[in-house]
């Protein structure tokens, strides 16, 4: 149901700064819009994004309704060791999605 993508280099040198890009498919309904009948559409957004590197948190973001639909994030991190980078989005109506990718550090 929920879809998300993360993009990072598959290999990196130790100590290199790599960029992680994360994109989640989500309408990010603000809660300020109305239908043509004037009924307020309830808020439905992603509120939190956490990125972990081998279990240790390296980046976290808190979203508000001012984030565009299909929230995109790009952030850097130091390539320290080979392992898994996992990104988790959580949001309204019990939304939770985790996407992970492996990285090899030489």
């Amino acid at each position, binding site marked *: 149901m929920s879809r998300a993508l993360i993009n990072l280099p598959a290999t990196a040198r130790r100590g290199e*700064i790599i960029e992680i890009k994360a994109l989640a498919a989500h309408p990010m309904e*603000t809660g*300020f*819009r*109305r*239908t*043509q009948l004037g009924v307020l*559409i309830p808020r439905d957004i992603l509120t939190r994004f956490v990125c972990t*590197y081998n279990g*240790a948190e*390296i*980046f*976290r*973001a*808190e*979203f*508000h*309704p*001012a*984030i*565009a*639909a299909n*929230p*995109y*994030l*790009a*952030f*850097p*991190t*130091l390539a*320290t060791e080979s392992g898994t980078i996992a990104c988790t989005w959580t949001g309204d109506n019990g939304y939770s999605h985790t996407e992970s990718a492996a990285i090899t550090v030489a």
Partner: protein
Amino acid sequence: MKRDGTNTTRREFLLAAGSISAGIALESATTVTAAAEPASAATVMHAAIRKIVGAARVNPGKVTLELPPLIENGNSVPLAVRVDSPMTQADHVKAIHVFSEKNPLPNVVSFFLGPRAGRASAATRVRLADTQTVVAICELSDGSFWSGSASVVVTISACLEAL
């Protein structure tokens, strides 16, 4: 008719009731105007900033907020923020908060990072309701706050369209 202090005549009652309701009307009229025109958008944003920084001083500088100067569609505006910081264990950026002046809600996004980021930067896409100034505030590991801002002209506003 004998009157004591506890009983009121009809005339006294109507007078008192009239003055009370007038008072209520006046009160509600002032609160309605206050709600309709929220004491300038900038004040709302500053209140939101105060909530995050507390009593600390916000110094200008160190933060670079990149936004296109002119954007056609406010529904998706690329936003990038960079902070001038060595990102070492002793001196790094702990958090970056972005605020908007004219959106229905002043908070836009908060990033939390640490020395493992290597470089203090982050990018995302935001919604902007109007032509305005967007402010980014960063918190350093020593507890100081720094700010940077960018002005953007928005031709089609986000948030307000009907379906």
